[in-house]
């Protein structure tokens, strides 16, 4: 499955994930403390400049990842045109786009395995409460493996339904899909036990 990490190599790819995450946290906290439009424009130049240094392909990827925001920006634009304070609406929209762009930048420049390593390190203290980090790592690996398997199963169920009926499957796939997930879980549990358990 595709991840959101960019294949274009940038200097940021070589920075450690922990450092990027800490920088992102401080940047986002700072961003939400800012209110003046000038300060927000200055803050926005940080992710924009960093994304621009990655070249055209990288920048296009960055823009594409901002696309889900447009309905919210549209609502903001209509709302603030209505209440007649477009300047404030612009500031809110700018802050939103900057925060999301900065977070996306970290995602685009950090490999999935490095991010997972950070999560496992964060979970390590839970070992004392009976949750070894190994088990969480196994759960993540299982989910990544089974997303394409379940997606295929969902397609098969829908195709089997259309072969039997002229109606569209829609919600009728839900019960068999959920049962498939329950069955697979039982089979995988057996397989794990047969190989010495989940640790």
């Amino acid at each position, binding site marked *: 499955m*595709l991840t*959101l*990490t960019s294949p274009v190599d940038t200097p940021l790819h070589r920075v450690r994930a922990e450092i990027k995450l800490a920088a*992102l946290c401080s940047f986002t906290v700072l961003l*939400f403390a800012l209110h003046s439009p000038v300060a927000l424009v200055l803050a926005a130049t940080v992710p924009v400049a960093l994304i621009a240094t990655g070249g055209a392909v990288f920048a296009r990827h960055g823009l594409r990842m*901002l696309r*889900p*925001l447009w309905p*919210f920006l549209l*609502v903001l634009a209509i709302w603030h045109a209505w209440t007649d304070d477009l300047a*404030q609406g612009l500031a*809110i929209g700018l802050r*939103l786009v900057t*925060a*999301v*762009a*900065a*977070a*996306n930048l*970290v*995602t*685009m420049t*950090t490999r*999935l395995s490095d*991010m*997972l390593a950070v*999560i496992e390190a964060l979970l390590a203290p839970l070992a004392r409460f009976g949750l070894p980090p190994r*088990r*969480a790592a*196994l*759960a*993540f690996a*299982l*989910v*990544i493996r*089974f*997303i394409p*398997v*379940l*997606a295929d199963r*969902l397609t098969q169920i829908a195709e089997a339904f259309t072969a039997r009926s002229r109606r569209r499957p*829609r*919600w009728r796939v*839900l*019960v068999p*899909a*959920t*049962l498939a*997930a*329950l069955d*697979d*879980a*039982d089979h*995988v*549990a*057996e397989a*794990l*036990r047969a190989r010495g*358990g*989940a640790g």
Partner: protein
Amino acid sequence: MERSLTHIALFAALVAVLGLVPPIMLGSGVPVTAQSLGIMLCGTVLGARKGALAVLVFLALVAVGLPILSGGRGGLGVFAGPSVGFLVGFPVAAFVAGLVVERWSAPVGLAAGVGAALGGVFVLYAFGIPGMAVMLDKTLAEAALLITAYLPGDAIKVVLAALVTRGIAQMRPGALLSRP
């Protein structure tokens, strides 16, 4: 032990896959995805604790950069966007939905419907509305107004969650982990 782990993992995968199902457009033009239905099912089928853990695993994988949130979204950016409140509320929603099915001895379909409505709508909005209010700099009432667009879709999902949970209980009574 292995069974708990694999159930949590497989339901996290189910939530991801339900996000890939193309959304249905309601009359209002608001897309309705099956993903939050998956969140409700985590609770009503797996029960409170395992359901919430499945949703947490799903969210961790969204955060590390898999594009498995509905509409192909993912990465840390979604936690800085207007929907962050809903994401934070997802595990709590699954927990509450599961708790109702576990503790209330009403018929499964009814308990699942009430659980899905309490968790997947009431609790979820209690997180989603403040999140949107902060991110878009609106008052709570204004944010609540923006969110009403999602209500019809969520009402449909509550009914579906109840029907699916009852369907599983009828076809495979032992499989419903929220009702041991």
